[in-house]
């Protein structure tokens, strides 16, 4: 399957292991990624906060570029926040022909046009809806037996449900659990799965931000999770990169590894932790790789 691939900014910045692991996993899923390397930041809601039309136009440009990719069936992203911010803009663009024409007028100067009806799916949605869990299960080389994984969705990919097309027919807010199970792992039920990691206010109210991250990580520890998995690199920043500070804030040791979705996939599809950049995490994923001694050796100084 050929997709117009939007990696986002963070996966090429502070979480390079996300972009890297997606690259490694794609061929194992027969995914051909055509990177949208001319597209701009989605704005993560911040540009929309500044100027809604600006955010809508920048994303309309991204959508227009995606629609130009020959033979691509859809646009795929690997960031909950991109999914949420882009879907919000797309909702406005698709809802109102007059507004769409207005935005297209700005894009028109560079010969670009967005046509209503782009399909833009996070890897998580694509896995379940396009590839299918049966197919995914059949490709598992190293089932994640006995690995207790807590899903951490990130707000932007689960709310608001009507905008994101979450309903009985497409229970997208259950997909992480379904994928974990398809990979042979055990889903851990804990309080934080659908909560906010706190990242959006890390520069504005650091204490509250870190307390949010610390609370969810602590809940996962209490539920005896071996690790968390998230489709959102911004959540990863607060949950992994900032975890030492979050530990200090909540006053307890957490040591909870947090995996990007393609990393968890990659492990089950037979890739080595090092190929998936797992040595780059701030919290070493020792509890993840204890499940197979052959894998433990693969991680730098693990």
């Amino acid at each position, binding site marked *: 399957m050929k997709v117009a691939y939007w990696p986002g*900014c963070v996966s090429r*910045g502070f979480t390079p292991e996300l972009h890297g692991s997606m690259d490694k996993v794609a061929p194992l899923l027969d995914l051909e990624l055509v990177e949208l390397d001319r597209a701009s930041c989605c704005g993560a809601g911040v*540009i929309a906060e500044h*100027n809604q039309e600006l955010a809508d136009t920048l994303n309309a440009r991204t959508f227009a570029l995606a629609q130009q990719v020959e033979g691509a069936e859809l646009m795929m992203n690997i960031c909950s926040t991109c999914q949420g911010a882009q879907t919000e803009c797309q909702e406005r663009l698709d809802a*109102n022909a007059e507004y769409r024409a207005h935005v297209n007028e700005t894009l028109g100067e560079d010969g670009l046009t967005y046509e209503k009806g782009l399909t833009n799916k996070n890897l998580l949605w694509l896995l379940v809806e396009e590839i299918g869990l049966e197919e995914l299960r059949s490709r598992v080389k190293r089932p994640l037996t006995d690995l207790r994984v807590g899903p951490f969705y990130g707000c932007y990919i689960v709310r*608001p449900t009507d905008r994101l097309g979450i309903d009985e027919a*497409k229970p997208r807010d259950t997909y992480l659990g379904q994928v974990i199970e398809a990979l042979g792992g055990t889903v851990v039920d804990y309080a934080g799965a659908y909560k906010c990691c706190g990242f959006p*206010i890390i*520069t504005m109210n650091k204490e509250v931000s870190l307390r949010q991250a610390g609370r969810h990580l602590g809940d996962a520890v209490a539920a005896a999770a071996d690790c968390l998995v998230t489709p959102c690199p911004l959540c990863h920043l607060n949950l992994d990169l900032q975890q030492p500070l979050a530990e200090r804030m909540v006053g307890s040791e957490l040591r909870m590894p947090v995996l990007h979705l393609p990393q968890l996939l990659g492990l089950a599809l037979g890739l080595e932790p090092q190929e998936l950049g797992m040595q780059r995490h701030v919290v070493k994923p020792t509890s993840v790789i204890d499940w197979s001694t052959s894998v433990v050796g693969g991680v730098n100084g693990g």
Partner: protein
Amino acid sequence: MPEFTLRLRRYDPDAGEAPYWDEHTIELESHQSVLEGILQARARFDGSIGIRCSCRAAICGSCGVRINGQPALACHTHLDQAMTGARDGVIEVEPMGNMPVIKDLIVDMDAVHWAKIRRVTPWLINKEPIPEREYIVPHEAMVDVTQSMACIQCGACVSDCLSMEVDPLFIGPAALAKAYRFVGDPRDAQHFSRLKDLAEDPHGIYDCTHCFKCIEACPKGVAPMSQIMRLRRVAGRDHQIDDGNNGGRHERSFTNLVRDYGILWEAEVLPRSYGGDSRLAKLSPRAGGELLESLPVIAKALLRGKVTPKGVLKPHRLPKDDLKQIKRIYETIEGREAGERFELNLYISGYDEEQEGAGGATPDAASDAAQGGDGGQQGAEAGQPGQSPEGSPSR
């Protein structure tokens, strides 16, 4: 008549006993409400069940509760609808969150919700001189505040606010939506001081984490988070408020970094949010202090190869021609006069009819897209945004 089992959370703080669950099976038509179910349980089985209600028609905002974990008005939730969310065939009803329980399903709205509403000066402060007769207000200005005026003060958004969960001092979604009602009203004389106050408060507009919980919770489509974003927009862009919480600077540096590089140069966001929108921001005392405090994290990130020195010092940027396009888009849109700004609010405009002749797209292209034409994207499927005009849009 069908039977439904309700599992009610019971608690009497004065009794000195722990909260407990109480189950009652009631008989009602499935289109009747959870509130009617609770009232029947109280009438038939236990007169001590505490529930507050009045209008029973989703307008007074008295019967806010959590049904199967989700905030809702008990009078506005049909029993069959509640059953779809019942995990074990039993409809679970709890008091709202983030507020202390007075008894059973009744929470103390005064202590939290109303205190926060009062915090935002929830009345109009007249412009002087007061006109002899009525104020003349542009139609669009009043339409703009109708969404926040739709609030019925039920507290559902307060109940679910994730920021308030860890920061009880956060002014919160309902009160901030109320604040926009006056900031958006041209008759109000205190726009700047209202915004300055809410921007400077460490628990004000910049304490919201964008979690969308309040949008999901609101039974009236007020979308409190969208109103908070409007407050930020007016504070940061129109009034250029430089607040002590880095809110305005964060918004401006983020936006300008994307203008200059096309994609976000993350390493610069933090210093510029603290120190101002310049490459020299990291040398400012405020940014320096923060960077110093984050040093253990930065060092670890460098050590693990998560962040490379090159990545910190040299940004990713888009190819030159694309950057030019991005800059031009910025110039066009940011250059608009205040009156020319285009802000679409779907709560007001609604969705186009499903099969409208698309504005920008030619009929050919539109039908091509619908058929998944070769080379193009497949037609949007159900569940894509803008594809489901039924129901009232809530943003």
